[in-house]
């Protein structure tokens, strides 16, 4: 740009990406500019994947792990064999504001990230409880289950963080100290799920039950190398332009609706995750 504030040449700013709201790509970029300090903190040194919607969310988007043709030379990349793709992938590493803006200009509405950093790609630095309801259960049920999980984690002396997925569920994240493996974090989440499943009628802990109507599944499977979760503060490609929003535990009360946390109000909220990576915790393996 002529103003010299960014290396990114913005294009098609008036293209509508959220047709129900009439939101343009310009507004999406503006959102990512405003949220940049929070999101860059978490994305630092992570090999990200993008979900791009060049023609807006009215059409199917596509997942992109590889940095696309035409990636500028100043964008940092990280080459690693991907087991899901079964080949070498050049991941984008979003370590600068310019990279984030370039991503937004690609109409990458959703940013997904692994639970590890490129410094130690095979070991987790985050542990994820992905809590997902099956109809007819509502978001209030998810809140109930998540608060139950929080009590249990508190009892174990752990400090969990919570965010909405931006869709139907909640994500509970614990930053993990060095020296743990994905096998351990996966097992830990799975065991807690099994424990809670005994305490509550609605909670299920096994993948085979995850589609049973009227249940809440505590998904442990994302705790694997190469798996991703939607990045905190990423927009979601749904008609209300929701955001995967970090929450204060005290705000996690019945009546909260993930649809109310959107591109319009999330940048004005406080950031409950601003110290997330300062409290890396050790797991007492059960």
């Amino acid at each position, binding site marked *: 740009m002529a103003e010299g504030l960014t290396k990114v040449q913005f294009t*098609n*700013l008036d293209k509508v990406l959220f047709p129900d709201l009439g939101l343009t790509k*310009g507004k999406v970029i*503006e959102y990512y*500019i405003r949220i940049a300090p929070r999101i860059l903190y978490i994305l630092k040194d992570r090999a990200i994947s993008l979900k791009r919607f060049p023609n807006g969310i009215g059409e199917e988007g596509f997942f992109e792990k590889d940095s696309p043709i035409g990636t500028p030379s100043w964008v940092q990349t990280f080459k690693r064999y991907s087991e899901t793709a079964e080949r070498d992938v050049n991941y984008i590493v979003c370590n600068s504001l310019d990279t984030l803006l370039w991503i937004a200009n690609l109409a990458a509405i959703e940013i997904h990230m692994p639970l590890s950093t490129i410094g130690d790609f095979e070991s987790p630095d985050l542990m994820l409880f992905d809590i997902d309801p099956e109809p007819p259960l509502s978001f209030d049920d998810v809140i109930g289950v998540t608060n139950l999980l929080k009590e249990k984690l508190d009892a174990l002396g752990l400090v969990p963080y919570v965010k909405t997925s931006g869709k139907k569920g909640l994500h509970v994240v614990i930053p993990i100290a060095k020296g743990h493996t994905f096998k351990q974090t996966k097992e830990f989440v799975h065991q807690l799920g099994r424990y809670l499943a005994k305490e509550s009628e609605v909670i299920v802990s096994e993948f085979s039950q995850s589609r049973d109507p009227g249940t809440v599944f505590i998904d442990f499977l994302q705790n694997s190398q190469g798996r991703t979760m939607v990045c905190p503060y990423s927009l979601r490609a749904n008609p209300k332009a929701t955001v995967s929003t970090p929450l204060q535990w005290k705000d996690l009360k019945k009546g909260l609706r993930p649809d109310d946390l959107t591109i319009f109000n999330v940048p004005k909220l406080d950031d409950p995750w601003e110290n997330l990576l300062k409290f890396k915790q050790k797991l007492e393996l059960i």
Partner: protein
Amino acid sequence: MEDIEEAEGKERPSKRPIWTGSITIGLVNIPVKLLTMIYDKSVSFRFLHKEDNQPLKYQRICVKDNKIIPWTDIARGYEVRKGEFVVLQKEDLEAARPESDQRIRIDKFVDYLSVDPIYFERTYFLTPDKSGEAYRLLLTAMEKMGKAAVGRITLKTKEYPALLHVYKNALVLTTLRYSYEVADPSGLEELSDLKEPSKGEVELAIKIIKDLSGEFSIDDYQDSYKERIERLIGQKLKGEKIVVEKPVKEEAKELMAALEETLKQLKTK
């Protein structure tokens, strides 16, 4: 690419008349010439063959045997029903053509502002043809009275109603549309049962209109698509690399303001 360089300036009037004749008012004749005044300045392109960039030409192809038909073998057909034609030869058309008697016959003078611009079609300059004195007299009198003259003119194959009026110290002629060429809004369903607004609403609307009232200035309006295309062509001519998608200015400005804030925040972090 003269057009590109002159894009900012206004068109100079052409010198070649498209018609010569006289204005006839009763027994008075004023010899005049008609000059082109309106230029369509929208962007137009030639079609090229993608592979070798050579221009394409049109040919007339018979739908029955796909043969190319030369102009000499072409007749004109009036389609009475779908696929059914009454054929007219060149001679038939010649005979029916209105005879241009090289006159602009003036029927009466009217208040210029009483003519709805809906009927205006195309405007031409009228210049005196060795008749400067009479021309000047007519111009001065019409200007003083705010009048326009209504009459008829035949141009090529069509007879038009016409309006003579004053534009910046020149007499101009505007051909008019016939009333049957303009649709009537009374047939529009959307307008048939609109609710009467309340007095308060009307007052508010009038206030808004008053607040936004000003002098009309056509120079406030520019064809931004045309400007972008011309800039693009200029760059291509100079061999510059073309960045096709340019941001919309206003939106880009908002982004830059947000960007400045965020850069400040990142610095203090």
